[in-house]
């Protein structure tokens, strides 16, 4: 397991073919006014891999991947390419279903959008067999549903016979404030840059990492490749009270927390009220009750994906939240608190393991890192890793400025 020598690595890669290469492209859309020096989480933006809402227990909830992951009851439910949503026609009852990893008895926040409603009767969403509220008009509906006991906890949208036409879109299920672990074959998989699947009992390592941007406004910048371990989704910024986080589920990798870092990204824009952020966590020793090592100032921002604790202003730290003195990782986060209340806003707190960074110096000039010859680190990629990218902007990144590149991982 692992590479015992350079000779062994050459043999594993050249003779045994234990190498995977994966291209990626992320194109921030509607990113707005970006400020140099701030960090952004590319997970929220379209491309390859697809856009993903942190913590969503549903695969392909916005139907960017067609009807992939969903079971459609008949041909009267079709995926519509032009709008990337599911359209219902006909006068039969139809269902749209996906099994989930939700747990019986746990409350989940469920959201979906109905448009083009024609006819009469109630559309209902259910989780694990427990129905939500009846809906008989266009709109985006969020409701809390206690997951029922039906096997595989299916999420089902039921459209009655009397609704002759409608569309369904933007389905998401979150365990709000509950740690949601990511695995590349489960929750979070659509956010992942694929690295070749499980290789145990071999160990897999990052060998090459290349990246470039096609626009001057994309450079200079720094891309950071991280293993996203999971998140605490949908923390509100409209509260100045301590918000307790649920840790029923734990880190899927780096389970001691050693080397694990935290950042939060804007999910829904908060208001303009200045806020400091504090956090109570358990470090990797593990010692509970730890606090951040500094007062962290959150910058008012309307940009989804912005790590609003980062930047060049006083009190900004980035890309990761500063740990308490002497700490070298996070095992879990027990609570978070903002110093003031904003009118609205939501953040997602992400735990991750940084793997490699690559600077992009000039538009279209590709950068490349070899993790043995140049960086001499060969960062390990664990089975199940969900590889994502965060970027530090050095200029105003305009809409649709793409970041492209590739990784190569080898194992032995």
């Amino acid at each position: 397991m692992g590479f015992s020598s350079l000779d062994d690595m050459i043999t594993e890669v050249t003779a045994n073919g234990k190498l995977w290469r994966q291209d990626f492209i992320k194109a921030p859309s509607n990113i707005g006014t970006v400020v140099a020096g701030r960090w952004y989480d590319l997970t929220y933006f379209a491309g390859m891999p697809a856009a993903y809402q942190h913590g969503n227990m549903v695969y392909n909830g916005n139907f960017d991947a067609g009807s992939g992951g969903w079971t459609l009851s008949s041909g009267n439910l079709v995926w519509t390419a032009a709008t990337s949503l599911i359209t219902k026609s006909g006068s039969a009852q139809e269902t749209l279903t996906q099994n989930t990893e939700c747990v019986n008895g746990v409350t989940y926040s469920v959201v979906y959008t109905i448009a083009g409603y024609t006819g009469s009767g109630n559309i209902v969403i259910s989780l694990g067999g427990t129905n939500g509220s009846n809906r008989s008009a266009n709109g985006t509906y969020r409701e809390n549903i206690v997951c029922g006991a039906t096997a595989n906890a299916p999420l089902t949208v039921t459209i009655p016979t009397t609704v002759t036409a409608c569309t369904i879109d933007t389905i998401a299920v979150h365990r709000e404030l509950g740690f949601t672990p990511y695995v590349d074959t489960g929750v979070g998989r659509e956010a992942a840059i694929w690295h070749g699947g499980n290789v145990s009992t071999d160990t897999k390592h990052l060998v090459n990492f290349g990246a470039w941007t096609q626009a001057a406004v994309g450079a200079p910048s720094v891309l950071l490749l991280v293993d996203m371990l999971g998140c605490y989704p949908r923390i509100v910024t409209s509260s100045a009270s301590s918000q307790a986080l649920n840790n029923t589920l734990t880190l899927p990798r780096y389970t001691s927390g050693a080397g694990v870092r935290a950042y939060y990204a804007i999910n829904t824009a908060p208001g303009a009220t200045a806020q400091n952020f504090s956090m109570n966590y358990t470090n990797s020793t593990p010692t509970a009750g730890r606090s951040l090592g500094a007062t962290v100032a959150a910058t008012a921002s309307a940009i989804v994906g912005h790590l609003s604790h980062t930047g060049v202003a006083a009190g900004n730290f980035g890309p990761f939240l500063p740990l308490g003195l002497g700490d070298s990782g996070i095992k879990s986060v027990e609570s978070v608190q903002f110093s003031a209340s904003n009118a609205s806003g939501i953040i997602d707190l992400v735990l991750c393991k940084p793997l490699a960074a690559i600077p992009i110096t000039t538009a279209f000039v590709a950068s490349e890192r070899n993790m043995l010859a140049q960086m001499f680190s060969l960062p390990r990629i664990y089975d199940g890793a969900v590889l994502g990218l965060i970027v530090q902007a050095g200029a105003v990144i305009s809409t649709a400025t793409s970041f492209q590149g590739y990784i190569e991982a080898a194992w032995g």
Partner: protein
Amino acid sequence: MSGFKRNRELVAAEAAGQSWFSSFRKVPAIATAQGHWADLSMSPGNPKPNYYVGAELTSTALASSTGIWTGGNVSPCTKHLLTIGAASTGAGTPCTLTLCDYLLFYPLIDMDVTDEQNFENTIPLPRYTDGLGVQAMLIATNPYIGGQTFSINYTNHLGVSGQISRPVVTNTITFIGTTLNSAMGPFIPLADPREGIRSAQSITFTGPNGGLAALVLVKPIATLLIREITAWTEHDFVVNKLDAPRIVDGAYLNFICNPNGSLAAVPVIGYLQTIWN
């Protein structure tokens, strides 16, 4: 045992003549567009251009001798990429090049047809036969309008049929040789598990896109980065990248590229060296 177990075997193999040096010169006759992948196999030069000639919608392979020559079959030895050098003498750079083994293609896809177009798999993958690591790209072989969505139905590397790719909106670059799926990178995003394609069964467009295309199955081999006009770049795949990617007997090698602008009439020149043991 074939392959290389230590560096000195590399040195000995080269000394024994188990190596091949090959040059290439591709000069696209048609424009390419900034940030969109394009297929240099279709460009004039050396090796000669590939026009994706074959029976309509039928799996067709390319002869190894018509791509960048790598020294022929060497089995039971295994052949590996040792070095690549490349440069460009005009606009369009910086430019990223990816060397691919072109396995087979399905030509003459009518992108105006919105019915499902079924492929004939008269020949299977000639190399990487289980499909592991094999990727697909849709290459424009005639001018098109673009802006329409397509997906492919394929059999994955595990032999599971009926897999549907992520829907992709074609670009509106309109140039022949463009990778129509460039908004998603060089290759069409696959369904889970994403390790490869064994064969493609059909393609479906949701609206009239205009033009003809070929669906091409490739195995990406290596990536090379030309950073400046007239400045040579060179990669040694043992010293610099430490992966010495394997080149299978019968491989048809050529490049796809992601240019900084139009490469029309711009020579992309270079060489590669293979070695086997």
